[in-house]
């Protein structure tokens, strides 16, 4: 699976990717090592919460595209896993969508399991244009502090 994740970097602007289990736990990653493994389970839990909140209105969520000012997060849900890609806003989105199709097809209809240890996941050095290192979460929405 690590090779599948790495292959996404063929698309300029792809910053990294990670795969989560249906429960939101981290299964595999190709993200800069500045990100601790623990944040991905938090992200997975929140992505699942978003899907659950939306499903009464659109039945099911197969794909989530979240646009921030500098980066986009694309999350595709399949029965056995969730495939997530973080890309720069300038990424060639049609090319990325096709690369995602290929990656998900290569993974196939499997149910991934959580990575047993931190060493089992792929970590790569921080890219020069990486987003800022994660800090204490800021509850903001379009510049407005929420609390």
């Amino acid at each position, binding site marked *: 699976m690590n090779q599948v994740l790495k292959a996404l970097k063929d698309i300029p602007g792809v910053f990294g990717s990670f795969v989560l289990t249906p429960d939101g736990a981290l299964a595999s990653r190709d993200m800069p090592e500045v990100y601790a493994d623990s944040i991905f389970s938090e992200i997975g839990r929140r992505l699942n919460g978003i899907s659950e909140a939306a499903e009464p*209105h*659109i039945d099911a969520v197969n794909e989530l595209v979240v646009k921030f000012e500098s980066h986009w997060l694309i999350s595709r849900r399949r029965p056995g896993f969730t495939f997530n890609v973080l890309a720069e806003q300038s990424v060639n989105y049609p090319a990325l969508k096709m690369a995602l199709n290929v990656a998900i097809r290569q993974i196939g209809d499997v149910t991934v399991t959580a990575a047993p240890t931190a060493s089992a996941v792929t970590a790569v050095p921080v890219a020069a244009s990486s987003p800022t290192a994660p800090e204490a979460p800021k509850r903001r*929405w379009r510049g407005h502090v929420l609390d």
Partner: protein
Amino acid sequence: MNASRSALPSSDEEPATKGFEGVMVSANLHNLVQMECLGMHTRMIRVDRGDVVGRIYVTGGQIVHAEVGGLAGQEALFEMMTWTRGAFSLEDGVRALDETITRPWENLLMEAAHYHDEKVHATSTVTLFPLPPAPMIETLDMTLFDDPEILNAVQFSVDDELLEAKGDDPEALHSAIAYASQLLVHVGAALGIEGLFEAQLIGPEKKMLCIATAAGTTAVVTSSKTNLTAISKKLS
């Protein structure tokens, strides 16, 4: 400093704007225009008074055009001449495309002074040449709700006040969007990214688009065949 869209630089001078700027603290726009005319200049005088911007074009020492708000020509010039405060800037070599004023500048300024005096002494507060209302900072586009492809929709302000809705149970949709938005902000924070402005949720039968602007948030639910990019452009 931006030149007016209706203005072009003269061909014999540099296209880059040159000039200076200042602040009027008394009724000296009259004197400023007079100096430009006496100096036989070709310049655009831009006058800012809060959210209203006016322009006076002087070509070869003659006032040839003025515009402010929805006014143009002599009326616009007279209106600006009543201003006693504001900021001005001069841009060399900028000519007006439309020449709406042909009278000699001396007559114009004299009449403008009369108009100013009459306005000051008038008991009525009605403006002779009313300016259009100041534009809103930003408003949400409500017309999109008439689109038949929009099955359900909500719009709410930055204070989470529900402004407009379409479809059944808008409160539930509002709550779902508000909750999802907060989770997405946390997802961004975990990844070290900020500035959440759009989310698309795609299901087998329906899609959901959520757009945040300075005026508030709009969320729409559509069929799976709807082009969300087109709706996003309308809402952004």
